């Protein structure tokens, strides 16, 4: 059992650390005291900072060298994020582009697309957004209804709506999954496209959540025309392209820090009666032990990466533990503090408001449990009523069912 770096990793870490030491004064302050109040100013600063990180090889390190990366492995990526956290500097702005969409274009895009888009993405000059989920296609992503119709001149016309789109309000491009053939079973009739977010007919609308903040957007497409060179991967082969994106998503999510038990203990311990209340102590102990467990589950996944393995889907359960423990912690702390804990600008009110949505983010807890039950435990899948049925027929049946 060894929590230390190998000599090569230690050297890599030292190199990252010394660069950050030298340049961290250039990093923008994006929250708390000293942060600009103008969101555009923050955005510009974060773009510039991503550019600096890209030049230094700290953004997109796992990308191949020919596209501006370092050809580094996932473990080096972990080291970079650990060191950035340690230095107290913000990470890159376009995590979704650099972490997931860029690698998808690298895997499936044409040379022309790679040449046109990757450099600007990596340096933060053009931010990207992921246009997969729809109001009626989340857990069942292959149910997307946004249509792409091919025109006589080879261009395509998009119509439909996407949702949960992070960064859409300032993104230059989006990677969009759309239906190109409704007469085949649903997984077989989708295509992936690149869409300029400033194209005519694209409308972005902020989607406010419980806290009142809009962390996501809805994006509407009304007769949006995109050229023939926008297709990523094969026509009607969009599902396979999307799976690549989702695989990279698994590597992106869950590596970050989360909620810390000592912070909750501090809040509880401030109240002399609470700290001696056996019920409070029990609840805090249970959730803290679980939060501690997932910290070590994180180390186990790093260890697996280092051993050349991809951490298995069961590591996805750490997110379930994290969200549910934080929910319990929010209730516990607010029960002790009382209504004052629900002040809108307070730390705990924000957490309490944020968690119900987080439970479904990146896949609902129920879908995750299905996937892990099937892929890890080898349990038989739920019977499906959509296999082998053309999408148009399926939709007709669904409408009939809903009307009955």
């Amino acid at each position, binding site marked *: 059992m060894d929590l230390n770096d190998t000599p090569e990793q230690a050297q890599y870490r030292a190199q990252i650390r010394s660069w950050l030491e030298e340049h961290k004064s250039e990093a923008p302050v994006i929250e708390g005291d000293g942060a600009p109040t103008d969101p555009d100013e923050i955005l510009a600063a974060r773009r510039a900072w991503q550019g600096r990180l890209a030049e230094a090889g700290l953004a997109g390190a796992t990308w191949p060298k020919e596209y501006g990366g370092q050809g580094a492995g996932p473990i080096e990526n972990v080291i970079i994020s650990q060191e950035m956290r340690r230095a107290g500097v913000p990470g890159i702005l376009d995590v979704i582009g650099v972490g997931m969409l860029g690698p998808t274009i690298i895997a499936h895009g044409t040379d022309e697309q790679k040449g046109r888009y990757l450099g600007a993405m990596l340096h933060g000059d053009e931010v990207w957004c992921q246009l997969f989920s729809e109001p009626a296609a989340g857990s069942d992503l292959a149910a997307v209804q946004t249509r792409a119709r091919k025109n006589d001149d080879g261009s395509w016309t998009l119509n439909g709506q996407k949702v949960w789109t992070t960064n859409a309000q300032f993104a230059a491009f989006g990677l969009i999954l759309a239906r190109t053939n409704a007469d085949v079973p649903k997984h077989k009739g989708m295509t992936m496209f690149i869409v300029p977010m400033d194209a005519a007919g694209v409308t972005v609308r902020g989607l406010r959540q419980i806290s009142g903040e809009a962390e996501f957007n809805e994006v509407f497409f009304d007769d949006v025309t995109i050229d023939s060179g926008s297709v990523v991967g094969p026509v009607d082969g969009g599902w396979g392209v999307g799976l690549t994106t989702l695989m990279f998503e698994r590597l992106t999510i869950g590596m970050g820090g989360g909620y810390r038990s*000592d912070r909750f203990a501090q809040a509880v311990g401030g109240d002399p009666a609470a700290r001696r209340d056996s019920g409070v*102590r*029990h609840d805090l102990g249970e959730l803290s032990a679980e939060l501690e467990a997932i910290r070590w589950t994180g180390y186990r996944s790093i260890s697996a990466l280092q051993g050349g393995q991809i951490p298995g889907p069961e590591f996805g359960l750490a997110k*379930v533990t994290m969200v549910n423990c934080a929910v319990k912690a929010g209730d516990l702390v607010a029960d002790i503090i009382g209504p004052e804990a629900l002040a809108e600008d307070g730390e705990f009110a924000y957490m309490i408001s944020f968690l119900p949505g987080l439970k479904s983010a990146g896949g609902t807890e129920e879908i995750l449990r299905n996937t892990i039950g099937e892929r890890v435990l080898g*349990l038989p899948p739920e019977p499906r009523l959509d296999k082998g049925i053309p999408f148009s027929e399926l939709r007709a049946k669904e409408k009939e069912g809903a009307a009955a």
Partner: protein
Amino acid sequence: MNLDLSDEQEFLREAARGALSRFKTLEAAREGLEDDGARLDLWPTAIEAGWPGLLITEDNGGAGLGAYDALLVAQEAGRVLAGAPLLGPLPASLLLDRGGYARIEEVASGELKAAWLPARPPSELEESWTVDALSGMTRPPAPAASVDGGSATLNGTVAWAPDAAEADVLVAIGRTADGEPVAVAVEAGAAGVSIDAGWRYDATRSLATVTLANASGTKLAVSATDIAEAWYLTQALIAAESAGTVETALEVSVQYAKERYTFGRAIGSYQAIKHSLVEMLRRLENAKSLLIYAGFAFSDHPEEVAYAASAARSVAGGALDFAARQQIAVHGGIGATWEHDAPLTFRRAQLSRRLVGGTHDATDRVTEELLAGRGPASEAA
């Protein structure tokens, strides 16, 4: 970072699995409920495998291995519900080894069987050293000790002590008039020692209530920290045993959920069943992560031992409770019958959560350590 088992650890685990596979441990767990003669004595196996000396330093005739190695053995014992003598002998060996016990080499070889009498370190809510109650909620104080040079005399009762019934030497924890703990090696046959042997609900565990009436023994040269460490080692061992038992319960339940059909489909395809099995897995994975943390704390960060071992017991104990009930539920009515193995898991879970302080107390200790600012200080590089 490398959290894989070393080759030696793999070997230790395989050897434990092999040694235990020679016994029909599940049959013994069932038959032992009605026939004392059917209960297994695994002490000879433990000696053969070198478990009594696992944690004893090489200079004292032991293997000089670490706590995590002991947890691997305990996990294997838990997998097959073996009543492996670990919870009494291992913490005893820790204190005898560190305390300069004259016959330590005999302890290491297993010629002399040692058992520890559990004593709980003080906390904000219970400010003195205590032992488990024979019955009821109020934990009595640890035996009173009067120290006279290298020896000490003890008065008190310790209930539900694992493996004490067959021990040659007991490692009792007493508290002096000023509240300090002392560890005392008392011969089981010494004057004033009475041992009431028995078991409760789970026939695989040997338990005893030990009464010390002016019983004298050798005072061990150990600190309060060492004495507390024996408690936390046992918390971690129970956690490891529990994780092993959950592992088997999950395997067996998953297998059944694939084979058993209702309404034309395997029951494992229903979300209600599938999600509960994944919940078993989630709790198991959390427990395994914390066993690694506990092992790491014992070897590298002793100041986090209380926190890590208590967290492991809390989570693994909860996992075992959940798995034991869920194993029965997945199997339906048959899972609650005498001939099925699920009730044996259930009996194990019921007793485990109440032994050596109980799961609930370990959970409380997690909070205790956090409130005292002794939470996770260690961070990976």
